[in-house]
């Protein structure tokens, strides 16, 4: 996994609540047996209509809005456990998702793919959304070490929580498998103790 420390980027504001993983990547694109290429179909049915025409209303299709950070409404990533949603967002180029709430499974999936979910307060999210919609060139800075997200030129920032173990994994590029594999002896002992 790629190491994550600090990112400065413009952001895409997606002011919709309860975005479920079926919207992030519709089920008909889950037939692949590898992880590549899901970015082409991220938010497919919001980016294109049923006939495949570009939907100009959708913010991803507005060239003014781009960047490595997605800022989305409350309860992002609910629904299906499909990790394809995280793969699709990463493949599209996102490194950070900001929301006031994340569904549990999505949050875990993101962290396992080097995609940082940042949970901020409702107030901060509202403010951020307003700024980004009005001024798409504004840069956000995410400092994982300090657990800070800020809009530098507006002089606003917020501290965010992250599990210490997960933070270290991201900073060092480790994943859970490496750790679990190192615990196999303890796991075997546990199995014996139950028999």
């Amino acid at each position, binding site marked *: 996994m790629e190491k994550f420390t600090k990112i400065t980027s413009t952001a895409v504001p997606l002011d919709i609540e309860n975005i479920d993983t079926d919207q992030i990547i519709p089920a*008909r694109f889950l037939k692949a047996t590898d992880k590549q290429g899901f970015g082409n179909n991220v938010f497919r*049915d919001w980016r294109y209509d049923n006939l495949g025409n570009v939907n100009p209303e959708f913010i991803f299709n507005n060239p003014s809005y781009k960047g490595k950070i997605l800022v989305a409404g409350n309860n992002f990533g609910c629904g299906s*456990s499909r990790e394809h949603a995280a793969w699709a967002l990463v493949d599209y180029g996102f490194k950070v998702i900001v929301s006031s709430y994340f569904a549990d499974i999505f949050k875990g999936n993101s962290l396992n793919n080097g995609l940082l979910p940042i949970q901020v307060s409702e107030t901060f999210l509202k403010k951020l959304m307003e700024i980004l919609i009005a001024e798409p060139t504004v840069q956000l800075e995410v400092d994982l070490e300090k657990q800070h997200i800020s809009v530098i030129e507006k002089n606003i920032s917020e501290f965010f929580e992250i599990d210490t173990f997960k933070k270290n994994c991201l900073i060092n590029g480790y994943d859970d498998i490496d750790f679990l594999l190192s615990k196999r002896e303890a796991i075997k002992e546990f199995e014996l103790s139950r028999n």
Partner: protein
Amino acid sequence: MSQKTLFDKVWDAHVVKNEIEGPQILYIDKHLIHEVTSPQAFNELKERGVPVFRPNQIVATADHNTPTINQHLPIKDELSKKQLKQLAINCKNNGITLYDLGHKYNGIVHVMAPELGLTQPGMTIVCGDSHTSTHGAFGAIAFGIGTSQVAQVFASQCLLLKKPKSLRVNVNGSLHPNVLPKDVILYIISKIGTNAGTGYFCEYAGTVFENMTMEGRMTVCNMSIEMGARGGMIAPDQTTFDYLKDKKFAPKGEELDEKIAYWKTLPTDKEAVFDKEYTFDAAEIQPMITYGTNPAMGMIINEAIPKFEDVSFKKSLDYMDFKAGGSLLNKTINYVFIGSCTNSRIEDFRVAANYIKGKQKAENVTAWLVPGSKQVENQIKEEGLNLIFENAGFQLRQPGCSACLAMNDDKIPAGEYCVSTSNRNFEGRQGQGARTILAGPLVAAATAIEGKIIDITKTVN
């Protein structure tokens, strides 16, 4: 001694080691896999040169991406065919039992595992599918995981997890006749919202759940994830033990007696405290229906759609082409789906058949009746329910996830409404542009007969 919840007791019995601040190493008893969320996990292990640690604790089935007609013929869709073939190869190479398409035990993972007795009280069960919460009906800790976690369990039979907070939902009293378990869970979600359970593991308690069959309990626990909870559990009791007794992989004889003695120690201690608790009165619950694009947007079938001002709510009603303040009664419906891991068990088809018997399907309706497993399909035939369906103009299909997520050809056309017994009414869930109305099997059956939504509270009572 401190008072423990059902969840605490099962969780604590599976913690391998408490050595680091933060996540714990949780041992997984049973790992269920299917074709869609496992291939990348097998690749991950292969790339690392790591073997599957405990293949005997893994069971596989093909369900998400399978056709529900002509299962004996080669699959037409090349990508689907490849995905299913990959599952078979991966299982064979790693010594994992697979109930492939056409096998007598094949079915939706959350239907086939319980009916085989693979799901048992006190277990930890995971699957790369969010509706794994279904298995909590037996008093197991069961939850959906992502593909990276599928790889972790392959590699170590464990997961690194932080213990979630505890939530209890109590429903006491007696349900009205014709109020089904699906109505109970849709009611709960409509009251507490899609993220009330995020960060929590839920226990359902109270007389309503005590009096429910195992099938009903599975329907309830299945939708725990729709309120954000990773899982939902119901304390094991005599209903659980009776259900398990003759199941293929359930313990037998003396071993069963020993297990039951242990399972009886699992229910939540009287004085145990939950982080959050909700209580509802069974008498308030009536047949439910959804009007929006998340499962919390539900109401009693004869109520009016509520009025809210926020953008997301309006976007949702626009998608559904419904009006705030409007009623869904008499709304013409052209598609009905009875199936999915929520409502595709024998009890659901009995409910539907009981209503349908002697009636005729409305001409405008295309109805898909999709059993949850080969065993359910066979039982439908043994009980002669298929004849009731056929005489009424319905066709029984073959088992699979089908139109719940529309990965196969069972798609609802754009703009059409479908009254569906599945679990999610998200935009496009049942096909691009399709509009889903969630309901129980009784409301679905009545819609198929009438060709429109009717006030079932009047008709049946």
